[in-house]
């Protein structure tokens, strides 16, 4: 178990180094990063000062070392738009994202687990057909458009829910549904297909022959095993979740990291975008590491393997 976690940690570190390197070289791909790092109204003195701090007149490998050592100390430059250190902006927005992402995941789990199980247990039945349709539609509908349809129906036409920004409980409903839908569709399909595999396996047959109740068979024997593929494909969901968060926060003017990323793109705020990407990468790796540990905990084949 310890070896497994250390191995995962090591892989995470390598990935982080890789991402940092790519971000560094992409910034230098198009000529002078000073042009990217400075706002349009910067003076020649600002420019010289930046060239000095980033060591832009030094050879590229020295620049890379400066970049890394600044990054490690949490200095990723100042935002063009806000004129404050980007890392501070990131942390001021992070809590807002951390409020809707778990809500969307809880929604996804609450919907996907029962529907996935029921459609596997009654294959071809009404619930199976219904959830199959939801899954197909959920995967084909782009998040940003779904969000706007929800705004149109529930805010513009019915006037039941607010269409933008943060506030009380009612402000959470539409963003959570928008972000959760993508996950619901994916989770549901995965849980269904792995439940089908497991229901057909030897140990489930044995449990049934032993006369265990159907509830015990489904909950204790099947579900735990059916969740493993969900965790295995976590990385794929993570990609969708990040994209979903950027798009959803943009649609609902939700002041989280997703919206911050969008602002960095449309205002061409390179230092901010660079920081958001590096911080996101760090966050994603931490979450992936936690998922890996959870994975080992659920699956004894990994927990006990040495």
């Amino acid at each position, binding site marked *: 178990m310890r070896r497994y976690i250390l191995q995962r940690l090591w892989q995470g570190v*390598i*990935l982080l180094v*890789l*991402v940092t390197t*790519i*971000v560094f070289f*992409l*910034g230098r*791909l*198009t000529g002078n990063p000073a042009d*990217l790092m400075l706002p349009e109204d910067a003076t020649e003195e600002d420019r010289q000062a930046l060239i000095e701090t980033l060591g832009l007149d030094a050879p590229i490998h020295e620049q890379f070392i400066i970049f890394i050592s600044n990054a490690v100390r949490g200095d990723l430059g100042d935002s063009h738009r806000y004129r404050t250190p980007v890392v501070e902006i990131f942390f001021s927005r992070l809590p807002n994202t951390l409020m809707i992402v778990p809500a969307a995941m809880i929604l996804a789990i609450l919907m996907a687990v029962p529907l996935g199980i029921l459609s596997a247990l009654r294959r071809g039945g009404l619930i199976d057909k219904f959830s199959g349709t939801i899954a*197909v*539609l959920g*995967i*084909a*509908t*782009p*998040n*940003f*458009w779904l969000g*706007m*349809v929800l*705004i*149109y129906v529930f*805010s*513009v036409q019915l006037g039941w829910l607010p*269409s933008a920004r943060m506030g009380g409980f009612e402000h959470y409903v539409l963003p959570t549904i928008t972000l959760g839908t993508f996950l619901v569709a994916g989770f549901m399909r995965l849980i269904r*297909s792995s439940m089908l595999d497991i229901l057909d396996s030897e140990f489930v047959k044995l449990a049934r022959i032993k006369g265990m109740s159907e509830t015990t068979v489904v909950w204790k024997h099947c579900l735990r095993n059916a969740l493993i593929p969900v965790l295995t494909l976590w*990385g*794929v969901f*993570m*990609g*969708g*979740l*990040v*994209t979903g968060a*950027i*798009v959803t926060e*943009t*649609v609902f003017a939700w002041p989280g990291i997703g919206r911050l*990323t*969008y602002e*960095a*793109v*449309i205002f*061409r705020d*390179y230092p901010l*975008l*660079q920081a*958001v*990407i590096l911080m*996101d*990468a760090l966050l*994603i790796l931490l979450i*992936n590491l936690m998922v890996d540990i959870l994975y080992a905990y659920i699956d004894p084949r990994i927990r006990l393997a040495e």
Partner: protein
Amino acid sequence: MRNLPWIPLTIISVMLFMGIFAPFLTSYSPIDQSLPDKLLPPFWEEGGSIKHLFGTDIFGRDVLTRLYHGARVSLIVTALALLVGGGVGLLIGIVSGYVGGRLDSLLMRIVDAALAFPTILFALLLAVTMGQGLRTIIIAISLLLWARFARVVRGEVLAVKERDYVALAKVHGCSPARIMATHILPNVLNTFMVLLTLHVGVVIVAEASLSFLGAGIPPPTPSWGLMVAEGRGKISSAWWLSLIPGVAITLVVLAFNLFGDWLRDRLDPKLRQL
């Protein structure tokens, strides 16, 4: 022919037709502004007319015309991104699977890393550093695709390379490059075709999302995602600006996904878990 998925095929054909013949289907320009005609509703709403079936946008441009031309953008991006991303993935998958050993484990590590990291972040970074445009968006979407293709193709190659005819080719003294090109490649093409079809929807949504976020094809060129984004601020007064292009995206993606599922069941049922 009996079990062909007719509805998805019809939607796909309509989209192809719209994209290919866009300039001949309409007398309006997708780009030129005509401010007196701005924000006309679709023909079935009050104030709409059959001159602009789906209404006009804030610059008085015909929404249907922009949909036609947007289909063209989606088709071009999809074709090029699948060619580049799918092609690179196919190549890496074949080499990795056939050569095996250290190279294989190195390449698969990179594939894992690429799959674990949300590529949209690199796509946005590329749009800011390289500037928006077709080239940027093709590179960005290819980054998303190649790893998925490489992983599946490699798995297929592992099975194919154990076949007798590959062994025979080796005994005959064929070079590895020749074996990969003439014996391995043709046998993974079915899988490759299925992967291509299953990823059309992925590419269309990715392009639309990037355009929506201001990192796609730059305006005024119409792209479906950009049209949704442009209509965002007008959702309460002019719903057609964003909702109609969204219907187009969803229908086309749905059609390609259903068609891809059908093709996979026909050609390569093993891939069902995808």
